[in-house]
């Protein structure tokens, strides 16, 4: 029995996701494709049950696969932002009224009489149940989009995604990464200076305190960026290779020409009369621009340290997102009634079977992607926090 068991264990062991490490880290692009797939799916429906299912799917994958890294904490912020958007949408619908004609009036707000030139705008007045339900669904759609973006942010290191940019765009990528690490430092500076205000006997609360520390914070940020620039220079940032002038000119011509081609092609596609030449010109322009970028990369001497590999698991993760999007788009065409139920008349929403099943495909990363901690029991058990060392001097808090 041992042999068979071992064999089974071996097969299972091969299929089971490995513990995440730097070597098998999923390509950041795969996470983004997956999240954008879910977001596309969310944009195709206003069925609240489907939207909630999408949010649940994204949330489960984040809970199962996110790490303890600082960027992974951004998910909570995106969730809150989603709730805020939902609430705002509802408040506007109640205050400004809704274009949805309804017969079920929930309550009446005192209506503000407006001058005749503001005709069509209404403040207050009757609030219909249909309007509120419509606003809720609409807000939920926006919130679901935000949650999907937040999931991508929490699962993939944004800096790692920028590292996958072509060589010619590398410097722009570094600028973005540096800016991203600056934001937390600024927050820490503001906190430090506000506590210092307390030591001067001034209040550390309120807007005024925040404004008064503004100048010192900016000064500090400026000093830090000068120091960083010096450090980067001393570490070889911006070293370039010699490129023959011919190649340089060709690069410029290809990039510019390519971009022009892309513009013309897009115009052709969108404008009514040029549909025939639009697509080929767009393709040509894209090709030229990509060639220009590739040639431009020859100027930089950089190499890449342990780039993320696009393996089978990355295909699975990205594929599941694309599949969800494709199936939802198909469903939106074939069964519009189920995906965008009419707000009038008021009815309890139903969960259409096949779209729901296709949304569940988005759960695949929770099984296919490498697991963040080699936890003995599967599940979103938080890693013990004791091992996390204390930040010296509250640099981050």
């Amino acid at each position, binding site marked *: 029995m041992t042999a068979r068991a071992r064999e089974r264990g071996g097969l299972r062991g091969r299929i089971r996701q490995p513990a995440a*490490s*730097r070597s098998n880290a999923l390509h950041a692009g795969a996470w983004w494709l997956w999240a954008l797939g879910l977001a596309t799916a969310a944009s195709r429906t206003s069925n609240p049950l489907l939207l909630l299912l999408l949010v649940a799917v994204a949330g489960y994958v984040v809970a199962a696969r996110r790490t303890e*890294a*600082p960027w992974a904490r951004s998910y909570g912020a995106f969730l809150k932002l989603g709730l805020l958007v939902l609430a705002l949408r509802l408040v506007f619908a109640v205050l400004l009224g809704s274009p949805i004609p309804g017969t079920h009036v929930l309550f009446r707000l005192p209506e503000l009489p407006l001058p005749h030139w503001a005709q069509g705008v209404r403040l207050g007045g009757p609030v219909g149940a249909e309007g509120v339900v419509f606003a809720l669904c609409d807000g939920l759609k926006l919130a679901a989009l935000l949650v999907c973006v937040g999931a991508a942010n929490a699962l993939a*290191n944004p*800096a790692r995604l920028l590292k996958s940019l072509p060589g010619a765009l590398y410097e722009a990528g*570094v600028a973005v*990464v*540096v800016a991203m*690490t600056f934001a*937390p*430092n600024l927050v820490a500076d503001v906190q*430090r*200076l506000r*506590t*210092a*205000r*307390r*030591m*001067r*006997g*001034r*209040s*550390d609360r309120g807007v005024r305190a925040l404004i*008064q520390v503004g100048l*010192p914070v900016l000064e500090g940020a400026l000093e*830090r960026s000068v*120091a*960083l*620039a*010096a*450090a*980067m*220079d*001393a*570490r*070889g*940032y*911006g*070293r370039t*290779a010699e490129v023959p002038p011919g190649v340089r000119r060709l690069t410029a011509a290809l990039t510019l020409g390519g971009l022009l081609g892309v513009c013309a092609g897009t115009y052709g596609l969108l404008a009514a009369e040029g549909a025939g030449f639009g697509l080929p010109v767009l393709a040509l322009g894209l090709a030229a621009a990509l060639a220009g970028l590739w040639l431009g990369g020859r100027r930089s*001497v*950089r*190499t*890449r*340290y*342990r780039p993320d590999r696009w393996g089978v698991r990355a295909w699975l993760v990205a594929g599941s997102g694309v599949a969800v999007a494709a199936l939802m788009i198909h469903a939106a065409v074939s069964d519009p009634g189920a995906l965008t139920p009419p707000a009038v008349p008021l009815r309890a929403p139903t969960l259409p079977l096949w779209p729901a099943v296709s949304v569940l495909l988005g759960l695949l990363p929770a099984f296919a992607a490498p697991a963040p901690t080699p936890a003995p029991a599967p599940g979103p058990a938080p890693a013990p*926090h004791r091992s*996390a*060392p*204390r*930040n*010296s*001097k*509250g*640099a*981050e*808090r």
Partner: protein
Amino acid sequence: MIRFDNVSVTYPGAAAPALRGVDLTVPEGELCLLVGPSGVGKSTLLGAVSGLVPHFTGGTLHGRVTVAGRHTHVHKPRELADVVGTVGQDPLAHFVTDTVEDELAYGMESLGVPSDVMRRRVEETLDLLGLAELRDRPIATLSGGQRQRVAIGSVLTVHPKVLVLDEPTSALDPGAAEEVLAVLQRLVHDLGTTVLLAEHRLERVVQYADQVILLPEPGAPPVVGDPAAIMAASPVFPPVVGLGKLAGWSPLPLSVRDARRAARPLRERLADRRPTPALPPQKTAAIAEASGLSVRRGRIEALRAVDLTVRPGETLALMGRNGAGKSTLLGTLTGLHEPASGTVRVGGLLPHRTPPRELVRCVGLVPQEPRDLLYADTVAAECAAADEDAGAAPGSCRALVAELLPGVPDDTHPSDLSEGQRLTLALAVVLAARPPLLLLDEPTRGLDYAAKSRLVAHLRALAADGHAIVLATHDVELAAELAHRVVILADGEIVADGRTAEVVVSSPAFAPQVAKILQPGPWLTVPQVATALGEGARA
């Protein structure tokens, strides 16, 4: 390896050159220490090696600097990146990426090192610096010593021939500083790297140096030589050298070990004497009292069941490794953090419930970065604002500044002051409210010996005046000189609390050099020994 030929550097708008007539050579594979008072041009000299002076900072450089045969005048810093590795004072300002492993690889990526070589060198460097367990960690979560090691590692991976470091151990606790210095030793011994470092804490580094470059005063040419010879003549020296000079040992010992071997006669002479004890304050009512105090910051318990009493006239040193909870304790005494359990009272008030205006009259804190306290653009305006904030009579802060910091004109911008002057100005601003309890967070960071001894004199006078003083510090020599009592924190708990001599003498990490040399005697500082010997001579 490094050669300066008659180098002088003048910054635009400066009346005098920052460096003048520098002629020196650092041979390959040496650890070379750069010493001198603040503002003497140490950073300029270091910058000239990496090419940041004058390419990045501006100014004109006369003469010629050659590093590994390359002229820094012709080569920009980025073209010197493969021979010179530079680590500045603040490692955080040095990091470009967000995780340890990426940071180690960043320099090599810029230089275009092939990926298999990069991988091998990162692994080697992780082992060399003991960073293997931290490889995937975000840099923001590292401690001070770990950050410093990552910063050194990040320039080591490109295999530079020269390593330039500006105050690598100033911000570190004694243990972490040992860690960093051990790494530097290893580089010099095993890899033949040439190391040039500037450091104020001579007691930590001078015994490792092969050569010392002393910049005695601004614009004066440097004195270069053997560490023992330079220390004998230098205006700045560590306590071990001070003791050696006092006892007349020759050759002058630089390390505690050498000094212990020479100290046998001195120990015998001192055997029947006792240092004049620092006057313990009378048992008066406590000015600050914490009992069963616990503080949480986020999910972390920064302090656990802390009992502490501070009396007027008493100087207390809080010690412990980075992140042990020293700053949190000071913050709790000033009401920044609310206790999770237990109580804390300062002058009878609950700090976190007291409005700041009232609290500043009970307790004053000089933060780690004194600049945080200063907002105005002239010293005079700063003093006027301080009087207003504290509700003191106009002119009282200015009078304090005149007393503590004579000769500073009214219209000086606070950021034009030297590190030590800025600290003193912040101290004056805090003292304007006449708080009976004074807290200082890491006051000697970046101070040279002269500024430090002025600070010690000020604080002694304040304590004699009846102020209670609490210092959070890594500087064991400062604690030995000033404190009546030492409290050692570890992981948020008090692990030792007692008279300085009792706590410090037996501890390997927190003992000052004199205590280590004269063990098991209760001696802490050179002046104590000098007084005892003087009395002995008279008797």
